[in-house]
């Protein structure tokens, strides 16, 4: 019954989406406002039916309705209720339903919020949203149906992949999907503006807040994914340049570029075609990402099921790219007449450079990701591109980006004066150079880490210095104290200070990546009971092996006593878990974080339990924890930037 309701809800929603696609066209021919109003109704109707379908699947998962194939493969009777709910995104069909659900929630919000605004554009915005929604609904109804039944009905389900039973996996996929889906909204506005040939800036300002929101979820989705990789996968790393990771990361780059270049359009009415292209690319990359992960055309550590869905996504990707860029090329005449850059030394040129860097990074990552395909298609040789390529190409680009983060926000628009440069950069640059010199003398002799640390300090110094100047001005004008001045500044100029806080977060992530990439120490040794291994300031003594049968697996753990600089700091027990149907044991690494470094222990092998010898891998990863702290700061900054505060006067924004 649940399956029938769910399946038919999707079919009904699909018909509504079809109506949403054609009604604006009929309306523009016919001129009757009824057609436009019905587009809005079609979106709200889709919202209702997709919500109903999603509720049906969640209900079936929670009540373990094993007549539905999807439920069988994603739960068992023993699965706790919260993991039954998260089974919604445990596999392909449910993930697509969740995606469609989020998409239609966003679309419904758009239809609801802009009931009175953007009257001319709205029908077309809703049409584009309906087209995207119709695509997902067609997949759900006819290609990978989450409500497909199974017969005979099994007594128990097969359950989730054990690696997915983790708290971070609860949040990682929905965060990413929300980010992906959020990018559909600016895309829909962009397409609507292109269709109508109405290319003034009104709509682009509207999309900015949506893009920030989407950007935030994308950032968090990627960071949580990295955290999960570090915390659960047990290899001591957080990023492997795997095709699927790249797929999740790539839309972030044009979205970030857009958030910066849109300010240039806002201020100076420049870069219209460029901004539209960035929006289209960002959206197309979300579809490309799903295509890549679900088509199985590239081999990835992320084991996803393949199927006909890949072909369907490719077809849609072709439609999106051809349709959008075709229309953009066709309309490009309307977008002419942009003023030229006044000076090379100005904020807009810094933003432009930032865009060039971000798009170059996107291009190199894209190329590396699909390189195995290109090489096999052209030379017939299987070549895959690994982390060394990505690291060596992207590190310089990202460092340049960090530099621009320090320079861009403090430069004047149009033309930065010599005075402006001296006032904003003299002291921060001096502080950073001094810091770099001290680092060089004392510790760091390698070029890229030294540059990374120095640039990070430079960015932090520019931000602190600029804020301090502004606070001093507030004190002089209004006599406010430190905290009062800070609050007023942030409230008066939310976007600027929100953005600067986000930059601080990015700097922390840079520190974490620079430290953990360049100065990790890795040791492996086979120890007998009582033997110890010295790594850095740690001494790790092997105390013995313990084995125990757990409900679902057999667990062997090694007990290690750690002392650092001679002080006892507790025992660690990394383990290996043997699941009866898994090829290899699942490792359970153990780590401890401090602000200066993480120590990470992996049990990589052992002799028979009785003989008590264990092979241990130890990683010391400096500064790694700052990556996660940076994420928290970014969240904070985004909240400051988008928090709805009523303003008395339209604040001077930058």
């Amino acid at each position, binding site marked *: 019954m649940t399956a029938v309701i769910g399946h038919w809800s999707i079919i009904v929603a699909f018909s509504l989406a079809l109506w949403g696609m054609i009604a604006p066209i009929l309306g523009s021919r016919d001129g009757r406002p009824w057609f436009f109003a019905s587009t809005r109704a079609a979106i709200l109707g889709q919202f209702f039916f997709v919500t109903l379908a999603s509720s049906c699947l969640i209900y079936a998962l929670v009540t373990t309705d094993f007549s539905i194939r999807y439920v069988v493969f994603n739960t068992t009777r023993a699965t706790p209720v919260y993991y039954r709910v998260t089974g919604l995104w445990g596999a392909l069909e449910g993930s697509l339903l969740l995606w469609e659900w989020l998409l239609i929630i966003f679309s419904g919000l758009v239809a609801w919020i802009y009931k009175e605004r953007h009257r001319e554009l709205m029908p077309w915005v809703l049409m584009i949203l309906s087209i995207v929604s119709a695509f997902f609904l067609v997949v759900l109804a006819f290609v990978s149906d989450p409500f497909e039944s199974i017969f005979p009905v099994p007594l128990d389900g097969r359950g989730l992949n054990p690696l997915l039973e983790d708290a971070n996996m609860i949040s990682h996929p929905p965060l990413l999907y929300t980010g992906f889906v959020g990018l559909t909204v600016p895309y829909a506005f962009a397409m609507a503006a292109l269709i109508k040939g109405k290319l003034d800036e009104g709509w682009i300002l509207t999309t900015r807040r949506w893009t920030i929101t989407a950007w935030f979820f994308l950032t968090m989705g990627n960071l949580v994914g990295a955290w999960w990789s570090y915390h659960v996968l047990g290899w001591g790393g957080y990023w492997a340049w795997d095709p699927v990771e790249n797929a999740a990361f790539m839309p972030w780059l044009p979205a970030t570029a857009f958030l910066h270049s849109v300010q240039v359009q806002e201020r100076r009415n420049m870069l219209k075609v460029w901004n539209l292209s960035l929006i289209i690319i960002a959206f197309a990359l979300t579809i490309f990402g799903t295509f890549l992960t679900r088509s199985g055309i590239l081999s990835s550590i992320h084991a996803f099921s393949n199927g006909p869905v890949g072909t369907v996504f490719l077809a849609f990707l072709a439609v999106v790219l*051809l349709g959008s860029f075709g229309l953009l*090329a066709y309309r490009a005449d309307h977008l002419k007449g942009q003023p030229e850059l006044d000076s090379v030394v100005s904020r807009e040129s810094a933003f432009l450079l930032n865009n060039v860097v971000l798009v170059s990074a996107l291009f190199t990552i894209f190329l590396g990701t699909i390189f195995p395909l290109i090489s096999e298609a052209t030379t017939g040789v299987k070549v895959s591109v690994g982390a060394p390529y990505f690291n060596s190409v992207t590190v310089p680009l990202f460092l340049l980006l960090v530099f621009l983060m320090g320079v861009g926000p403090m430069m004047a628009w149009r033309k930065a004066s010599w005075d402006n440069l001296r006032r904003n950069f003299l002291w921060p640059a001096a502080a950073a150079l001094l810091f770099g010199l001290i680092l060089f003398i004392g510790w760091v002799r390698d070029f890229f880490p030294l540059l990374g640390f120095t640039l990070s300090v430079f960015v932090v110094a520019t931000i602190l210095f600029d804020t301090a100047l502004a606070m001093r001005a507030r004190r002089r004008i209004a006599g406010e104290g430190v905290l009062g001045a800070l609050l007023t500044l942030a409230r008066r100029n939310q976007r600027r200070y929100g953005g600067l806080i986000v930059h601080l977060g990015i700097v922390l992530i840079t520190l974490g990546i620079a430290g953990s990439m360049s100065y990790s120490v890795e040791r492996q040794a086979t120890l007998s009971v009582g033997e110890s291994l010295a790594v850095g300031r740690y001494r790790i003594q092997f105390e013995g092996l313990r084995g125990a049968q757990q409900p679902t697996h057999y667990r062997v753990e090694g007990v290690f006593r750690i002392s650092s600089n001679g002080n006892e700091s507790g025992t660690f027990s990394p383990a290996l878990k043997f699941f009866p149907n898994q090829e290899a044991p699942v490792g359970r690494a153990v780590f401890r974080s401090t602000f200066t470094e993480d120590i990470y222990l992996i049990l990589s092998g052992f002799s028979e339990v009785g003989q008590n010898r264990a092979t241990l891998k130890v990683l010391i990863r400096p500064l790694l924890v700052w990556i996660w702290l940076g994420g928290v700061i970014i969240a904070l900054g985004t909240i400051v930037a988008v928090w709805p505060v009523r303003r008395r006067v339209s604040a001077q924004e930058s």
Partner: protein
Amino acid sequence: MAWRRTALTVALILPLIGILAYGFLRDPRYIPSPIIGRPAPPFALQLFNGDKLDLASLSGKVVFVNFWASWCPPCRAEANDLEAAWRRLKETDVVFVGVNMQDTEENALAYLREFNVTYANGRDPSGKIAIDYGVWGIPETFFIDPQGKITYKHVGSLGQSVVTAKLDEARRGIVSAKEGKGEQISIK
């Protein structure tokens, strides 16, 4: 002018779509087996009946080595065919060996009873034999000629006709150019 620009844009996008579509024509996990044509890695298998079977002692015979597990559906699909082939051929110079991997002894024995398997079977609890043979998914089957060389590898379930034909080739020492594939394999 606008149309020319549009056509140019389309012409730039199509190759990208083309190369992505090309991806469907290939299997990214396909790695040509380096083991075909090489001497079979030696192993000693502890059989369920308590005996020990050493591959070295089988030289001069055609050996059929099948990796399986009780939880693997394609293994179940081929089990009856394999046993039938064995009963037909057991009077000849052919030896069938089943290697059970990633399984519990209890489930493995139940499986052998269920399909009335009568050829030699043993466990590979540490997975060492499977690793030596580069087993990636199961079932995987290896055909070894009387000189101890692997002549053919088959991934996925097998039918009787292929078994007979490939055993015949192995007897004559004919090395297949490529590994074969059944409809499905299990990876857990």
